[in-house]
């Protein structure tokens, strides 16, 4: 629906206007997004979360690994969200956990998307044998249960944060690859792609400058939702203890309280609510983008 680079028939004759007024549709999308209250709420909260990630540890400099109270103490005046089995403050843990959660989620998503878009674009653009081989490889990665594969990678190599990020990316890129490929297959049939080829554009330019921008709307939605999925994914890995031992994350807080949560509900509930809220708000943004890009499909 949004094809920012497509000159339609009456624009062809006034090409100066096209250059002076770029991407009108993107502006429409922006307005539609801003009119969506749920999406703005989500965006606001995500911004808040980012601020907590950046400034939280500065405002509350307490060490999240330090024992500050009696073990498994109820939420009270001293510890807002109670203390865990080692007497560590759950609230301080949540504040300090925001930053690693954010960094891992964003980096892992970027790597995932980079791999996925590259493979999907090449497969969709070249088609034929290249497509066939790349899609078989994609399928191969899809039959490996993502979490199991990621656990194996972390167990075999190390639980360093870089390995965790790569493990997440290696196990999840096929979704993005398939989506990109499908978009490329659709878009490359358009006349403006043929036109670009006719004037002698190189393949690399056609892929990155002509097709990719037109494939962006569905990809942007997918990328937004991918950030949320990655937050949960990373939480699952740290829940299982497969994460950097020096870093505190929300998933790790839940995992470490596994043997005690019947006595102390707060040790798992609050970090879980933190994950839930952040991902929920990312989902609201994703929904808002979806509605803004496809106004006709609103509410599905």
């Amino acid at each position, binding site marked *: 629906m949004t094809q920012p680079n497509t000159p339609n028939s009456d624009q062809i004759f006034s090409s100066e206007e096209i250059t002076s007024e770029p991407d009108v549709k993107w502006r429409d999308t922006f307005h539609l997004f801003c009119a969506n209250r749920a999406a703005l709420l989500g965006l606001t909260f995500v911004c808040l979360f980012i601020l907590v990630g950046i400034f939280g540890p500065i405002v509350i400099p307490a060490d999240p690994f330090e024992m500050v109270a009696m073990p498994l103490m109820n939420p009270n005046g001293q510890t807002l969200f109670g203390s865990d089995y080692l007497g560590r403050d759950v609230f301080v843990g949540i504040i300090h956990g925001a930053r690693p959660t954010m960094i891992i989620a964003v980096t892992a998503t970027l790597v995932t998307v980079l791999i996925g878009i590259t493979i999907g674009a090449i497969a969709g653009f070249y088609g034929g044998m290249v497509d066939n081989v790349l899609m078989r490889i994609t399928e191969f990665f899809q039959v490996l249960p993502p979490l199991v594969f990621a656990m194996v990678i972390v167990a075999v190599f190390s639980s360093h944060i870089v390995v965790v990020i790569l493990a997440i990316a290696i196990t999840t890129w096929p979704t993005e690859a398939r989506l990109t490929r499908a978009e490329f297959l659709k878009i490359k049939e358009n006349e403006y792609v043929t036109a670009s080829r006719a004037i002698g554009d190189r393949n690399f330019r056609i892929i990155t400058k002509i097709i990719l921008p037109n494939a962006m709307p569905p990809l942007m939605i997918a990328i937004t939702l991918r950030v949320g999925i990655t937050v949960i994914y990373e939480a699952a890995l740290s829940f299982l203890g497969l994460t950097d031992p020096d870093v505190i994350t929300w998933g790790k807080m839940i995992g470490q309280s596994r043997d005690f949560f019947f006595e102390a509900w707060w040790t798992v509930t609050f970090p879980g609510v933190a994950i839930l809220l952040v991902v929920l708000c990312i989902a609201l943004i994703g929904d808002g983008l979806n509605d803004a890009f496809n106004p006709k*499909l609103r509410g599905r």
Partner: protein
Amino acid sequence: MKQAIIQRIFLGIVMITAVIILNFFLLHAAPGDVVDAMLAEGGGGDPELAARLRASYGLDEATHIQLIKYLGQVFRGNLGYSFYYDQSVTELLLGHLPTTLMLTISALVLAVVFGTLFGVYAALKPKGIFSNFVTVLSLFGYATPVFWLGMIILLVFALYLPLFPAFGIRSLPEPEHAVGRILDIIHHLVLPTFTLAILYLASYSRISRASMLDVLGSDYIRTARAKGLSETKVIFKHALKNAAMPVVTLAGLQLAQVFSGAILVETVFSLPGVGPLLYESIVRRDFPVILGVLFGAASTTIIANIITDLIYKYMDPRIQSIT
């Protein structure tokens, strides 16, 4: 048709071979080998003995020869030996996979059936309360970590309202009658299955609502209505089948993901499935078991994919291949 089946099965075998090759290289990348594990269990490390053992296991041969030997071994059903459990990995897997598969499949079936029904019902009144409920449910289904949901469900339905058992798959002592034993297992599986199913149910209900809305606007539904068919017949006989297709397709593709979810749920509910086995083995660095689980999970998915693919072809002859 026959050729397609053979092709599909051939592709499956190629995939399984690829998984084995991947496993081989991961096993090589892992710190320590079988001999180290054996010596560690035996409590001694004599380098001369280690060298002799390595030679007897063929570990001093060139990589490609080891790979071919490994492939042959795995195809004969030998996935290596766990010195910690003192059992072959194949036996360990066969002991643990059924629980995981039972959990995965029952959750997936529940999610598909109820997800589709929810979606269809919501599509009948797209602006109604139930439709909004589906939207909210799907948002939460996307945003809730499954292991955390399991813990919260445990807190509520096993601790505060002690309706269901919190751990394991069997009561001790076991009920005497066979029927009692089966009911006991079902009783233990209710919460884990529900935990796993609800998240997928949430997303499926939204997808089936979207596809149902599409289908309800199509010509053949108008024709069916124009023929004077009752609304029930239009929806259940004509629309439902086509509206359910995207959900079934997605469920087939998501099998590997649901399997991953099942592993987390098992860890939370202490079910004797692959999850706790994998967790324990990772803690103990028991690599033959870890890679055995990867192999078992992947080949299960491959086989299940072939089966679903064939079912599709049977159900809808227009489909050449879902991939």
